[in-house]
């Protein structure tokens, strides 16, 4: 009994254990549900999976199933970010315990019963538990906002190296607070139309209505919700990475006000799409996105500079190659910001190019082609977020030496290969006709599947390793049970 109690205590009562469980849950869902579409469907694996698991897939409900699948995975990702937050930032222990408890129960209910409802027959009790899970996560979000309240003097900072107001208010904490508050409000922005459309499973995917000139307020609300939630997950992760790396100094002092401003303006723009201000909402969104992305750029500049300085400290006058070597010598420290930069090629760059050339190029193509770009670029952003989390997790695990190099570089290289393939696939109509595309499509599919497959394999190896470790009396888990992220953040 003590055997189970100790493991349970580690998995559900320590930051690293909670993160491990959530990553494992996402990994399982991704592996199983990834077999229902694309090449796996083509080679017949989908039919086999449906039969083996006894799935009940009604054709008219595909869109509803996908919405629940996205939410199931997204809630686990939000839980991971929340664990990182409660582990990294100072807060009262009551709040930390309560937030972690509510969000853990919440995402597990959402994931297990949401997927049960969507894919295994419509047991409405499951649907109720799914909604209960989402509600608990929402409640955890409110508690997080209270816990992060930055004007509490207990959280003021005196360190001159950190962005702060004269009164001592920690601007980094304000940025976290702004992201948390707007996340909770933007969740409501999805909950209202979710209830409206979900009542009877009458849902739609936003990418399918993008060209309709007249959209209802509820439809705009759904489109706004999905965009802002992903943006907020990315913003929160950028702040987390900054805290993990101990982002400070001049760059941080400039970045934090920009991040606060960007977060608020971006949200105002997105919420504006359901108001009479809709015609200018996009402009407000661009205005908000710019300072947020600048803040991320400043984190990148600061962290790369630090990596170079730390790695060449022993050299009097390092040359370019020595600096480059210092920059890339630790893939887990270099990787997160590199992925943020790479995101500009796969997500932001594509998005801006599409916006600029929308009527000239993309709206000349049929809607189903435009849908590929839309879904492709936000899947790419989601994948980048996942890889950054995995890199931070690798650092949390204390990976060292060759294993650290192998783990870190595998994530960077395999994901970037896959994402480069996705990007070319999205843009293929710019340089090849429908009739002539098949060999290129095949090559790109191999590239994407290779990259993603290897990434999943790597994750599977790590998860199996962690599972085996749990059976050891003095495994790594015993050390992790007592560790906290705030103690390990770079000094």
């Amino acid at each position, binding site marked *: 009994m003590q055997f189970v109690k100790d493991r349970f205590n580690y998995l559900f009562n320590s930051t690293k254990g909670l993160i491990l469980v959530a990553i494992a849950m996402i990994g399982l869902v991704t592996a199983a549900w990834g077999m229902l579409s694309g090449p796996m469907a083509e080679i017949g694996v989908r039919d086999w999976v449906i039969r083996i698991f006894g799935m009940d897939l009604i054709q008219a409900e595909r*869109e509803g199933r996908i919405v629940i699948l996205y939410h199931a995975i997204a809630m686990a990702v939000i839980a991971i970010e929340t664990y990182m937050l409660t582990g990294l930032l100072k807060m009262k222990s009551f709040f930390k315990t309560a937030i972690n408890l509510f969000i853990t129960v919440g995402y597990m209910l959402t994931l297990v019963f949401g997927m049960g409802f969507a894919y295994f027959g419509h047991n409405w009790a499951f649907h109720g538990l799914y909604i209960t899970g989402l509600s608990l996560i929402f409640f955890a979000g409110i508690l997080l906002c209270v816990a992060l309240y930055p004007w509490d003097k207990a959280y003021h900072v005196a360190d001159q190296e950190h962005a702060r107001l004269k009164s001592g208010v920690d601007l980094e904490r304000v940025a976290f607070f702004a992201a948390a508050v707007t996340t909770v409000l933007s969740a409501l922005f999805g909950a209202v139309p979710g209830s409206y459309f979900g009542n009877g499973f009458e849902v739609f995917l936003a990418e399918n209505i993008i060209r*309709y000139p007249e959209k209802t307020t509820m439809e705009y609300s759904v489109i706004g919700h999905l965009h802002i939630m992903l943006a907020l997950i990315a913003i929160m992760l950028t702040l987390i990475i900054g805290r993990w790396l101990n982002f400070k100094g001049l760059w941080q002092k400039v970045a934090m006000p920009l991040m606060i401003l960007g977060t608020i303006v971006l949200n105002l723009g997105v919420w504006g799409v359901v108001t009479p201000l809709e015609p200018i909402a996009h402009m407000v969104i661009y205005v908000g996105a710019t300072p947020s992305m600048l803040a991320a750029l400043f984190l990148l500049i600061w962290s790369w500079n630090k990596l170079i300085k730390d790695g060449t400290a022993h050299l009097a006058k390092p040359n370019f190659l020595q600096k480059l070597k210092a920059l890339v010598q630790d893939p887990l420290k270099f990787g997160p910001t590199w992925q943020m930069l790479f995101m500009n090629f796969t997500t932001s760059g594509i998005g801006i190019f599409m916006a600029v050339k*929308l009527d000239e190029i993309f709206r000349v193509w*049929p809607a189903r082609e435009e849908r590929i770009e839309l879904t492709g670029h936000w899947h790419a952003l989601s994948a980048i977020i996942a890889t950054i989390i995995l890199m931070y997790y690798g650092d949390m695990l204390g990976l060292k030496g060759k294993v650290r190099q192998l783990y870190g570089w595998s994530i960077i290289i395999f994901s970037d290969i896959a994402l480069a393939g996705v990007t070319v696939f999205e843009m293929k109509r710019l340089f090849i006709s429908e009739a002539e595309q098949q060999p290129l499509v095949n*090559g790109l599919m191999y590239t994407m599947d290779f990259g993603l497959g290897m990434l999943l394999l790597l994750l599977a190896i790590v998860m199996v390793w962690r599972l085996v470790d749990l059976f050891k009396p003095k495994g790594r888990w015993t050390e992790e049970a007592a560790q906290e992220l705030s103690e390990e953040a770079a000094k």
Partner: protein
Amino acid sequence: MKRFIFNLSLLAVLLASCAPVNLNAPMPAFETGIDSNAWAQIPAGEFYFGQHNEIQTTDAYEVMVTDVTTTQYADFLNAALADGYAKFDGEKIVGFYPGDEYNGIKHEEKIDAGDWLFIPLNDPSQRIKFAGTIFSVQSGYENHPMTMVSWFGAWGYCKYYESRLPTEMEWEKAARGTDERPFPWGEEIQLNNANYYSSRDPYEDMKSFGSRTSPVGFYNGQKYGVYQTLDSASPYGLYDMAGNVWQWTGNIYEGMHYRFLRGGSKDVYDMDLRVWVRNNATPTYVSPGVGFRCVK
């Protein structure tokens, strides 16, 4: 050695990706026995429309049992060219269209009265050829659906024969009948129900040219060589209402110049073959995966 094998594999994939596609690769020639000149009667009355089964009503109308074939379109061009209904404009055939009302909505483009593209002649995917005096069809494609035709070209064909393009409601009722089925033939889709992406029909080769059109009415339960099809007619006896080619529909919606397409095609996954799925494109768009049929 391992690195060499990896690099070699990578190079092979890259080279294979750049391989040219033979758009005139040999293809099987099968007669389906389905009359492309036949029309089906659709009675007036209610039916379930859209993914969420909204009850709608249509008047009675007739609809073509199959998509318009390349042979039928070539015959149309020969007749239309002779009486001035269509004409050459460089390497394309154009015809007059009276234009649409313009509302100045964001992204809306003006469709003025004038000559608009029916079909391009210089595209390698075009199966209709002009040999000095008459239009003819590339051998092997005679009973395939007409593709590489714009919305104007489809609209012009139907109008010439005193018919019209179906509205989205008419199209969907013809495909679905009066029950809630997602596919013209029933609840589920199998590989030999329709021509769609990677459906392993005799006309596709995913290693080289990918999917190609199949003859109209191909999925009628017949066995073609070793390939057994399932009878996939709609409740009113229409063929190819799912897969093979997207079909232009006739609605012109206020504030948008896009025209809507229904039915999915040889180039999309099965999910896009569900009867309520909509696609849209500018009316000048042409593709090897887009065709049409008429109603009257």
